[in-house]
Structure formats: C-alpha cells, structure tokens
C-alpha cells in the first residue's frame, strides 16, 4: 500500500523528550550523540538495571499556570505544549486562520493510562467514595490531541491513532491525507506518550523491559503540515516536504519478501531514520546498510508514538536537497516507510 504526497510540506517542528524541551535542545542532543536515558528508580521496579527516557527537564510551570495545568494529564501536557511550540515555530497565529481548516492527527500509545490507573486505584482502595470524577475525562487515549485542540482552537479533523510502534506514523498518514483531499489547510501531527510507575511495573511483569519496552521514552514530537502553496502564500519557512508514504499491516508468514517489497522505493535515500522496532528487521534495512542512520530512540527512548520525535529529529538533521527514508516497524506490524526531502525547494 503506497501513496505520494508531493506537495505537502513541513513548516513547523517541536519536540519534548529526554533530549530536552524544544528543537534547540534536541539538536544539541543529536549533535553530541548524548544518551539521555536514565536509570528507572529502584523503588518503582524493586530492582536495578533498567533505563528509561524521562523528559526530566520538562517543567509545566514554564508554559502554563499550575491551576490550569491541573486539568491535564502528563501526556496531554506534552501534546498541548508541544503543539503550541510547533505553532510558534511555524509562525502560525490562530487569530488569522479559519479554525475549521486546522486539524490535529496524533499518535498516542499510552495516553490516558496514568489517569485510568489513578481513577481505578481510588475505587479499589476506597470503593465508590474513592472515585475522582475529574480524572475520568482524561482516561481516553484521545485526551492529548483533544486537549491540544481545545487549548489552541483547532476545529478541523481531530483524530488519534494507536498502532504499536507505528502510532505516530499512522497519524502522520491520516494528516497527509486530510491535507491532500482538502479537508484541512494545516495539520498538526506526530505523537505523544508518557511513562509512569505502573506502566513500568506492567512491562516488567510481562518481561518486556528486557525486550521491546527496554529504554522506553516519553515526550511529544509535533510536525506542522500544509500544502506548499498554502505555506508559500503565508510566507512560511519550508523545512522540507513529504514524499511517498508506504505501509503494510502485517508480514504474512512465508510471504515476507512480498510485503517488504511494498515498502521499498525506487531511489536510494541519503539518510535512514529508524523508529520503533525497525532496527530489528534486517529485511527492511536491506540495501541501506551503508547509509548514515539516525536512531533517536537510542538517545531519548522509544515508545509507541515516539515516532513523532524521531521524525522531528530527522528534519533537524536533514539538509536541504537531501532525501531521507523514515522506517518504522512493530514486531507484529504495521510497517511504515516514509520518504522525506530536506529544504524548501527540492524535487522528488
């Protein structure tokens, strides 16, 4: 399954992660190749030896008053604040835009988990008297995208996707389609995820801290998409453009090569970005072994929707005129291969 999106450009970026708050900090992390993963506190798991990518430098008070912040869960704070930063980076002012033409498509793996746990904890420990109604609205996975849309006034398409390690890429595909078919002029897309103690305990009990959940991270990576003509009309700085998006859902046993073939492009990229479990699929990486490789998850942690941060990181490093291939994969699917082009005026 493939498709092209040649006239969709990226005009804004934002990232919150263990690599810092904002593009400048993430760039510094990438340039220095600094591993920002830290030990998971022993009191959480009862054992040592595990790392996670907590967004330790994120201080909500830097962005909104504490009283207002109380109505958000942590994942919603990541998404809402990163969206605001991306809006600023793209030079967008909602006052001059039709809100019905601005939308958000976000990947979110663990949004709502923190509130769900806290809400249920109250019930299990104190019965019906322990229920805190205020927690319930933000137990839904779409809370981050919806809170961001409410905060910033986006009335266009609003959707949240979760699909394993490709949640952000799944949302990215939808965002591109909404622009392509004219449902929106501007789409905010990417991903948001948070980490908390109960999740880590859950991963540990499943044995996943030694496998897929090892070095999980949190944060949000947001990209601003719009049509080239729309961006040019408002004088926006174009950071790059979206090429073909290829995806398959599942590798059929015995027919893996046919599936992988659908992810391959005709031309070779200059750089390869890996997200999720893409590095675990040699067949997927075949033919790119000699190319520069960006795997931001190793530095700031990966998660289901940290593909948003990975795509932002790619655009931070992608030079004008260069072609990039972003690969995202999950052990049981799906798989994504997205072509990107750096700079304002490259041709596919």
């Amino acid at each position, binding site marked *: 399954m493939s498709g092209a999106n040649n006239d969709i450009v990226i005009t804004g970026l934002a990232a919150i992660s263990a690599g810092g708050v904002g593009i400048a900090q993430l760039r510094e992390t990438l340039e220095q190749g600094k591993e920002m993963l830290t030990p998971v506190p022993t009191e959480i798991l009862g054992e040592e030896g595990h790392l996670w990518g907590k967004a330790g430098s994120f201080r909500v008070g830097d962005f909104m008053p504490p009283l207002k912040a109380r109505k958000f869960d942590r994942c919603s704070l990541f998404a809402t604040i990163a969206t605001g930063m991306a809006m600023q980076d793209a030079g967008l002012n909602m006052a001059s835009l039709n809100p019905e033409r601005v939308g958000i498509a976000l990947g979110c793996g663990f949004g709502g988990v923190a509130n769900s746990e806290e809400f249920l904890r109250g019930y299990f420990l104190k019965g019906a008297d322990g229920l805190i109604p205020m927690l319930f*609205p933000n137990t839904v*996975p*779409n809370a981050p995208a919806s809170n961001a849309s409410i905060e910033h006034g986006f009335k266009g398409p609003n959707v949240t996707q979760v699909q394993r390690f490709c949640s952000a890429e799944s949302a990215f595909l939808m965002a591109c389609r909404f622009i392509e078919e004219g449902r929106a002029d501007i789409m905010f897309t990417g991903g948001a995820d948070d980490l908390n103690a109960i999740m880590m305990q859950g991963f540990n009990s499943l044995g996943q801290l030694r496998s897929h959940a090892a070095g999980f991270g949190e944060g949000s990576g947001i990209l601003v998409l719009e049509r080239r003509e729309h961006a040019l009309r408002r004088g926006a700085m174009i950071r790059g453009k979206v090429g073909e998006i290829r995806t398959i859902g599942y590798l059929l046993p015995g027919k893996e090569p046919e599936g992988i073939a659908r992810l391959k492009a005709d031309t070779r990229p200059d750089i390869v970005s890996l997200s999720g479990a893409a590095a675990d699929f040699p067949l997927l990486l075949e033919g790119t072994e000699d190319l520069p490789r960006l795997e931001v998850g190793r530095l700031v942690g990966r998660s289901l929707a940290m593909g948003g941060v990975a795509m932002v990181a790619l655009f931070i490093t992608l030079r004008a005129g260069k072609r990039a291939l972003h690969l995202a994969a999950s052990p049981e699917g799906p798989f994504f291969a997205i072509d990107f082009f750096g700079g304002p005026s490259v041709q596919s």
Partner: protein
Amino acid sequence: MVHNVISFHPERVLFRPGGVNLRACLCGVPMYASARLLDFLARTKNLSFPNWKPTIVFTRSFMRPSVVKGKIAITGLGIFAAAGKNRTSFTESLLTGKCAIGPVDLFDVSLFTGRIAAQVRDFDPLDYIDRRIAGHLMRADQFALIAAGEALEMSGVRGNYDPYDIGVSMGAGAAGMYHSELWLKGILRGEKSSPSLLRGFLPDHTATAIAGHFGLCGYQGSITTACSSSATAIGWGADLITTGRLKACLCGGTDALSLLTFAGFNSLKVVDTDPCSPFSLGRQGISLGEGAAFLVLEDEAHAQARNARIYGYIPGYAIAGEAHHMTAPEPTGQEAARVMRCALEAACISPDQVGWVNAHGTGTPLNDVVESRAMRLVFGDGVGSVPLVSTKAMTGHCLGAAGAIEIVATVIALNAGVIPQTLNFRGKDPECDLDYGHAGVRQSAAAIALSNSFAFGGNTTSVVIQGPATSDQRPRLFRDKNEWSK
C-alpha cells in the same frame, strides 16, 4: 438552472442541475475553479449529464492516475453484541425492537447508582474460537474476531485479492481494560497478578490479532477517539480504498465493559438507572454496552467484477473537533451540525436525500437536546421528515464499538426498508421536538441515512450510508430474513 455546489471534495464536484447529480472529476484543475467551470456550463448551456460517471481521477498534487474513484461498496457485515450474537439475531432484535440492556454480572456493580448495561451474556469464547487462540485474546478481541469472521465470510473477499491489498481499520475504546483491572486490583492488594492479564491492554491489540488471524496484511490501524472511534475507522477504511491504497478493508470496532468506564460514567452521574431512553422526557443518561461490528468495504467495480453482493455504500464521512470542552458538547449544536454537513458534502449528498439519521443519541439530557438542535440546523424546514433514531436504547452505548454497531444497524435497516425504533420511550420532552421513531419500527423507502458519533474531547464523526443501488435488492429482509445468515 443551477444550484449551489455542495461538495468541497477536491476530487469531486457535485452539482444538482434539475435534480440530476453530476460527479465531475477534473484533472489538475483547482477544486473551486472546476466547480465554477461546471457551474458556468450548466447555467449557460443547460447541460445535464445523467450518464456521466468517471472512474479515473488524477490527484491534484501529482497528476498521475493513483486513484480509482468508484463507489465504496459494503460487501460484508458482521456483528457480535448483547442485542444479537450474529447478523440474524441482531437483525431480529432491530426489527422487533428488542432491548438488550439488563443486569450486569461481569463484575461487581453494587456500589454504583446505575447498575445495568447491555452485557454480552452466556458468552463462552470456546463456542466460537479455538482454545489456543482464545487464550491469547482479551474479551474485546474475542468479540472482534467473531464479528470480523462473520463479515469476511459474508463478503468472501479473502482469496480474491492479494493479502497485502486487504487491510484492517479498527476503532477501539477501553479494549483490554477489563483484564488489566484484574491485574491492577491484585497488585494493589499485594496479591500475585498474572501478567497475561495485561497482554491485550492497549486498544491496538485487536487490529493486530485480526490482521494475523485472517492474514489481512495491507494496513493495520486503530483509531482511538473514544465513542467516535469505530465510525471514524469505517470512514478512514473507505478512504484507504478511495485512494487506491487498498482494494478491500475490514473496518469496524470492538469494546468490552470495564470497571473503568462503568465507574467513570457513574462518577459523572450520567448513567440511567433504567434502560436508557434517548430523547424521552425524564431520561437520566446512558446505558453502557459492549460488542463488536465490522463491515467489509471494497471498490464497487472490484466487488462487481468478482460478483460480490453489495449491501450498500459508504459515500462519504467527516470528522472534526469541537474545540469546546472535554466532556460537554458545544451547546448550540452548530459544531455537530457542521460535521454532519461536511459528511454530506464529502458524499455529494444533499440534506433532502437523507431519509433518516442514526443518532449518537446517548440519552444524556444535554446530548440529546444538542443533537436535536443540530438536526434543525442541517435539515431546516425539512427536519420533520428526517427521523432521528437512537439504536443505543437497544444495544447500549458500546463506546469504541458504538459507531460500527450503529452503522451496521443502519445498513441492515436500509436493506430491510425500515427505520428502527428508539426504544424505552418515557414521555415527550418539549426540548426534543423532532421525530425520534419512538412509536415503533416503520417501513421506509429511504436509500440514504446518516450515522452520528460524538465523543469525549469533542471528537465528532458523521458517516453517510447508502443502501443497495437497485430497487429489487430492497427490501429483501422482509422477503427472506434468513438470507442474512447465509
């Protein structure tokens, strides 16, 4: 005489000259200019194009024939819910107005005010699924596997396409929460909790399970926008075919009752103590439900080429954000009306073509009033002839599966030539002054219906559903009800 352009779909422009629909697809011409050009031709040359039906569209951006623009046909339906554990029994409930809301014994509900729901009772997954497979699935996954299997079998789509041309587009809600709660409860009590309870914790687990089980390899995605999830998943599934990314897509949703949602809605005091009574006087809120429903979608031309039976179409959908409040709907109904209008525009359907609307219709005091206001804004003076019915009074509010269950119910009703009843009427509410179908199931010649799904976060979705194309195909259910079990 023209006639306003009612579609803003960049690849299609709809006119209504003299009551004739014209779908125009213009290569590389900007949408608005295309509309203006055709508008000019229609006005000055008095042209009509009754047989003009283009199928190849050049996308505006690339000028290459990447999109086959046919109608998106429904060739399979599957459902597993409290109101019916297959198409036949669900159809019977729908046509006879049988409410599935009753006592809950899945978990202890004694501490809550609202203690009823549409629970799937007497459910043993091993009656449907191999033990080895069932053991790896959560309750919501099991529902989904059963309903998906029914839809796929009905359509016969597998084997007709390369597995990499068939995808899965799911809508999900609380999903594996029920089992995860058991794990959390054990942890909090210092007991040993089985990690396997967490296996299907995330809502994307079902799509992965279905893709693997049925070998559907083209796409795997899960929309998680609470109560609008599966309606959006169906719209998105149709879109994946429209764009040529897939040849067929299994679309739908699943959800299971959980303490989280049961306690959550109770804590917000929006659960009715009696079976929910949408649009009735004295309604107090929702009744929760659970289940799964799926459609198999294909491009009409492909479906016809393989002689598949077509049960209807998904001509368009729309999604939006209200940007108003996490739980309360925008009170004037303007935002709900906007998404309904956008869906009609995307489908190239005018409001006067809509026979009835399957409401979001939760039965909460505010939601029902707002949806009624939205109906007035969309249908204007004609609102009296467009019934707004809620099948949630039959199925309960199945959250992540609600949209899919309601769309399947709508397809069944369109095929049966009926408008379903809104059950549990308690009296006329002066603020809900439309036709809500409280009186009973009635026959209808309607060919088109709209299905609304509104969610936490202000996520709104509206899907247009069209019945079978030819009149001899409807109303078939009254001729042979058992046909649905074939």
